[in-house]
């Protein structure tokens, strides 16, 4: 049978659903990068107070601030998508989907607020 197979080139630009999916996948890069920055901070702390102060100074540079702002938005989006699909990936439980999603997002907000309170207090 003579059939025609269409190309998949640029597939993710054809539908907003795919674009949000690709952004979800891309956000992993920023989550990883942010984790590496934190790990580097730990490494510099082990090296001594001067090394740690240099790491802190680097964090205050404009490029670093922009990176952290972008990472904050993308980590937030990543968390939201993570909990949004969580009901599909969990073994069958008796909780409704909305409870899993809102419970997860609520937990992220509560832990973030507690950390912020600890850091600022």
């Amino acid at each position, binding site marked *: 049978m*003579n059939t025609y197979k269409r190309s*998949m080139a640029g597939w993710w630009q054809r539908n907003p*659903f795919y674009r949000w*999916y690709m952004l979800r996948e891309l956000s992993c890069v920023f989550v990883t990068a942010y984790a590496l920055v934190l790990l580097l901070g730990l490494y510099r702390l082990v090296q001594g107070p001067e090394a740690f102060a240099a790491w802190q100074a680097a964090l205050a540079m404009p490029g670093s601030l922009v990176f952290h702002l972008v990472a904050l938005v993308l980590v937030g989006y990543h968390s939201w998508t993570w909990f949004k699909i969580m009901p*599909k*990936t969990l073994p069958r439980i008796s909780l409704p989907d909305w409870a899993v999603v809102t419970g997860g997002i609520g937990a992220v907000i509560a832990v973030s607020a507690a950390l912020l309170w600890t850091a600022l207090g």
Partner: protein
Amino acid sequence: MRSIAIECLRYHPETDRAPRLQSYDVPFTDDMSVLQGLQYIKDQLDGSLTFRWSCRMAICGSCGLMLNGKPSLGCEHFLRDYYPGPLRVEPLNHFPIVRDLAIDQSDFLRKLESVKPWLIGEPPAKGTHLQTPRQLDEYYQYSQCINCLLCYAACAQYGLNDKFTGPAALALLHRYNADSRDHGKQERMQVVNAEDGVWGCTLVGYCSEVCPKGVDPARAVNQNKIESTKDYFLRFLAPRKGA
């Protein structure tokens, strides 16, 4: 009477090297579905337009189409909702086009057969199977699948790699594995565990969005990632016969 431009993707393998768009001006009433619009074209404007349909009421799953880029059943959507148009009608994405809006479904039919979508095991010696509402609830939504293939047209992973077993076949696999009357889970686990089984899914999730029957194939596939993981590790604890 209002009218709307319907742009149909046309492909006749005898004369066309690639698909082309053809526009038709279709008068419509408020109660006309997109499928009825296509039938108007075929009856009144161009008898050469090819498309599939049967029940006209979202039961048979024959009239799956891309409507303005979204996998949809032609019978389930009204022309009025696309007014003033134009409305672009294309064959379901990710499948080879046989002619105009008709796709080649044979790849799916092979996959459907591979998941053994029937009850495996002996029927009860006396009477009928008994099942509690809770047991029914384990698989009921997945049994609503009508094989319309909208989920395959939504699945980017299937589009990129058509070896992937795909959403509907895996949802139907789960429908039987989750049925208390069935004893064929071990046979089907080969399909679940395979390279092109559940691990081909990256949870884009669009399959569950477009399903016209409320089936959640993404959930079925990802529930079986858990089953596949359990199956992998349990073989070390309790080696199977012949393994």
